């Protein structure tokens, strides 16, 4: 029943399969190609917008990040996680009193008296939430179709398909980034870039990673361009004499960029060729926005996520010189796979996330683009609610954060999950699949669609980018899984 995969039936997908897409060294504007084949799907933006994906590698423990705070829920959380008497810390449970400074105050209170606080180390993000500049998406994770726990547990995988390889790091990272498990070469961020290529002066600067290769930014035409936290890497041996020789410099420039018949040789030289072609433009554009100047100097030190976001901020500042109007960025921080030492190690990681994102928001505000830049978190998965002694295990649904002036902040989106690890028929046991691994009540497709719409993607294009989206929303008979979650202005 769910073998229909709209993704395979768009014209773009047809082109992808038949290899007709341009595969030259520089990305070409897709707008012309698509228009020529009758899909006027690309948009031509006149304003600037950027999406920034902050990927938390390893599967972040949601239960100690967006922490259930109201007494009834907190007490359940504490009992499951080994908390101490009197709502004190214990096992892998945080003390309730430690959460008060980061209590989230939504403009409209959650039903049933539910409350959440951020992890105590996330004071910056809590502040942004309470100021209306950040929001929380509750219990989001990959879904092919909406699922109840009973449907998850049934053996009928035709009617109730599951995302493949749940609980496996690399597969779930791939599914978050591209709606497909291992085997995927195109991500939804890259597809957003495909639609935006025509809006940008240099299409190569549409999808930019500051963190290394990932499928998220790979499009059908859009390439993921890599920049280091220090800027574009200039290759000395093609820019300056080599050991005193201009002739060797010239030979190097030929050797490292020449086309080759061998497939691997050619692909390698294409990357080098792109690197050389782009470096001068990036370097000169960044020169006007040195890291030592405000607002970039306000980023915290010793925080590699902050370093990456600082580079993103500088690139955004330089958008005129780069001719950019629509960009998608990827940054990341790892270390979240806390099977052990959850209490000891998660605070540092979350502090980095909070401080980096707060500094980033402030920088965009100082640059006058805070309403035009939206950052959002993503991760392999959430984790179990139950403890293995001093940590938690791989999970599924998780809570995530959206930050930016265009975010309808001071609000929760999605449905607060019950706090439970039981397996009875009671309602509170229906939103996890064992050990408190959350069964998502919002899908990644819905989350991505909401961001994509803000970015400028037409509704008609969304199904091609997010293949499972057609299983959600009013059109699919599931208005309880809306394809616009409503968190963007």
């Amino acid at each position, binding site marked *: 029943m769910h073998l229909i995969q709209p993704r395979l039936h768009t014209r773009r997908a047809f082109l992808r399969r038949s290899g007709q897409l341009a595969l030259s060294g520089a990305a070409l504007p897709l707008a012309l190609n698509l228009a020529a084949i009758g899909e006027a799907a690309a948009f031509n933006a006149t304003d600037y917008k950027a999406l920034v994906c902050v990927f938390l590698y390893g599967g972040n423990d949601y239960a100690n990040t967006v922490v259930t705070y109201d007494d009834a829920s907190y007490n359940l959380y504490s009992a499951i996680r080994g908390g101490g008497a009197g709502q004190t810390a214990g096992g892998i449970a945080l003390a309730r009193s430690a959460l008060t400074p980061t209590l989230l105050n939504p403009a409209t209170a959650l039903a049933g008296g539910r409350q959440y606080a951020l992890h105590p180390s996330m004071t910056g993000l809590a502040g942004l939430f309470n100021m209306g500049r950040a929001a929380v998406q509750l219990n989001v994770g990959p879904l092919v179709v909406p699922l109840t726990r009973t449907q998850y547990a049934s053996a009928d995988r035709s009617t109730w398909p599951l995302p493949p390889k749940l609980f496996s790091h690399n597969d779930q990272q791939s599914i978050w980034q591209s709606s497909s498990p291992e085997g995927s070469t195109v991500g939804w961020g*890259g597809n957003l870039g495909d639609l935006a290529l025509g809006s940008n002066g240099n299409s190569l600067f549409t999808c930019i990673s500051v963190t290394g290769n990932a499928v998220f930014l790979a499009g059908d035409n859009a390439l993921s361009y890599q920049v280091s936290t220090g800027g574009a890497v200039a290759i000395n041996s093609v820019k300056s004499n080599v050991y005193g020789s201009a002739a060797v410099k010239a030979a*190097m420039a030929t050797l490292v960029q020449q086309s080759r018949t061998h497939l691997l040789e050619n*692909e390698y030289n294409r990357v080098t060729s792109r690197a050389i072609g782009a470096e001068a433009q990036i370097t000169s554009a960044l020169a006007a926005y040195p890291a030592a100047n405000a607002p970039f100097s306000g980023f915290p030190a010793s925080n590699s996520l*902050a370093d990456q976001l600082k580079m993103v901020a500088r690139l955004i500042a330089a958008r005129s010189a780069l001719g950019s109007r629509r960009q998608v960025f990827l940054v990341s921080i790892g270390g979240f796979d806390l099977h052990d030492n959850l209490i000891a*190690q998660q605070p540092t990681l979350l502090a980095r996330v909070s401080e980096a994102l707060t500094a980033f928001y402030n920088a965009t505000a100082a640059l006058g683009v805070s309403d035009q830049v939206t950052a959002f978190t993503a991760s392999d998965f959430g984790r179990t609610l139950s403890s293995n002694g001093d940590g938690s295990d*791989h999970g599924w649904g998780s809570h995530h954060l959206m930050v930016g002036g265009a975010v309808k902040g001071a609000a929760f989106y999605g449905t607060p999950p019950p706090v439970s690890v039981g397996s009875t028929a009671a309602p509170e046991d229906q939103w996890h699949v064992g050990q408190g691994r959350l069964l998502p009540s919002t899908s990644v497709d819905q989350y991505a669609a909401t961001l994509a719409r803000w970015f400028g993607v037409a509704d008609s294009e969304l199904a091609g980018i997010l293949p499972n989206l057609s299983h959600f929303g009013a059109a699919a008979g599931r208005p309880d899984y809306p394809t616009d979650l409503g968190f963007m202005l």
Partner: protein
Amino acid sequence: MNDVTMDWPDEARLAEPATVLKTDEARFAPTGPAPGATALPAVLAATALAACGDGSDPGAADGSDAELQAIRRRVRSGYPSPRSDAEAARFLLQAQAYATATDIASVRSGTFSAWLATQYARPPGPTGWDWLNARGYATIDSTTRYFDNTYPGDYMIWNQLMTAPDALRKRCAVALSEFFVVSLSGLDFAWRSHGLAAWWDLLVAHAFGNFRQLLEAVTLNPAMGYYLNTKGNRKEDPATGRVPDENYAREVMQLFSIGLYQLNLDGTPKTDAQGHRIESYSQADVTNLARVFTGYDVDMSQNVNTYDAVLNRNIPNTTPARLPMVLNASRHSTLAASFLGVSIPANTPGAAALATALDALFNHPNVGPFFGRQMIQRLVTSNPSPGYVARVAAAFNNNGAGVRGDLKAVWSAILLDDEARSPAGLTQTGFGRLREPMLRFVQWGRTFGIRSAAGRWKIGDLSNPATQLGQSPLRPPSVFNFFRPGYVPPSTALAVSKAVAPEFQIVNESSVGGYLNYMQGVIRNGVYVNAPDQPNAGSNASNGYDITAAYAAELALVTDAAALVRRLALLLCADQLSASTQTLIVNALNATPVTAASTDAVKLNRVAAAVLMVMASAEYLVQK
């Protein structure tokens, strides 16, 4: 911790700072062909048929004995001996990642098989553990704090790779380290560098042994115990709701033995009636298998603490970092465990449960193709034909003497197979693999005989992709290694044909430049070392280029640019540099005249320029 030698600000690193030590900063990557896509890209199918020689291909052989014998016989059929220096060098570059003139002569003196036999018989070289101790890195001192630092581990492994006498064994151990993964970047315990050395020494010791023993040693190794949480893993506690940690149970199946999907002998995935791949294990298998890995902890029986008054801390000795983990029966799960069709009754003693579990993994039919295919990818080519995979898997299943899991049989099957040895691969546009940056650097060091003047070999972490190699041995970003076996570079011709190129997962616009810039410096001047004369990090009057190549043979050829380039082409890439590339390089060298009367600096400039240009060429970078 303050390693001044290779110190760079954390912000320049893409990997996480060392204080964030939990692993699994897992990089995704696609794996394997899409369901039903069992056909090779056209360019590679021809390779398969040509390599077999007899026009047939075992394909999805069912693994019966006669079938296996027939498959094995094909392995050594075509090319038993090198017919030229280039063929000898090509073999060496696949087998040990570098070739000296001496090595080439040695290979040419007999058959490939005989050379391998000699290497198998050679005893392992000095261990990393002993090297650390000999250089004082086991000293307990609150100022040097070797027990907390990772740089001794970096120095150890670079020294192993740059100087070890048993190069084949070391190359195979590197390949094993990218399958059974522990990362120095993810270790957080006292004596982590020693722990890493013990881990490395384990892979070296088992490299020519049996997969079953290796799997068990890996499972009980303390560094692995910390890395994937077997250490301290406790049985279920219904009172608190605690359940066993599942990390090792999942990864030992997903990565270290059977993989995600059921496989045919030739590595292609089995499919069901609807053409979908069939998962090899479920979440229930993981949860059950996790019970087996409970009750283990580091062996403290030989520990003696030293109290450090400055740090107000008890420092253990190094023994717990090497001794296999021990079982505390009271912490071992008492539940029954059912996984992969095996049942372990409740209250089974831990040792028996472990044996049953490891036997089940080892005997699973997936292991031969799953492990074999990845080892082919590490040594020879990224996209082996199904026939090649089947022959290697058959050798894993039965080494010819009825033994399953004989690693020597696997290495031999890989290196002696027609697909590796045949000249056909040299002209196929899809054959071969991108050399890994850290092994290009090792190749440079071994080819030109680099030496550490002060003898301390302080080469540190070179992971920075913008300023260094973007890769450092035993420091992958996660248990998923530096790259996934099934990585397909997006937006490439490879993506269109679904060919994989694992090593491209670390190729991007930053790392290609980092490699060239870093090599430009070291090729001419060597590795700059702070305080090369002392074991600990620091900076003193001895700072300088401590690790250098003398280039004696190259300097002897320096006035003849063409001869120089021919030599480099042979040693570095087995003559796989085309005439036009060699001409381009020679002409660039000749633009600056060099005679016998030229200064040493001018002569060194020419040698360095020649080496750099070769090592920058795509024909060198892609090993065929």
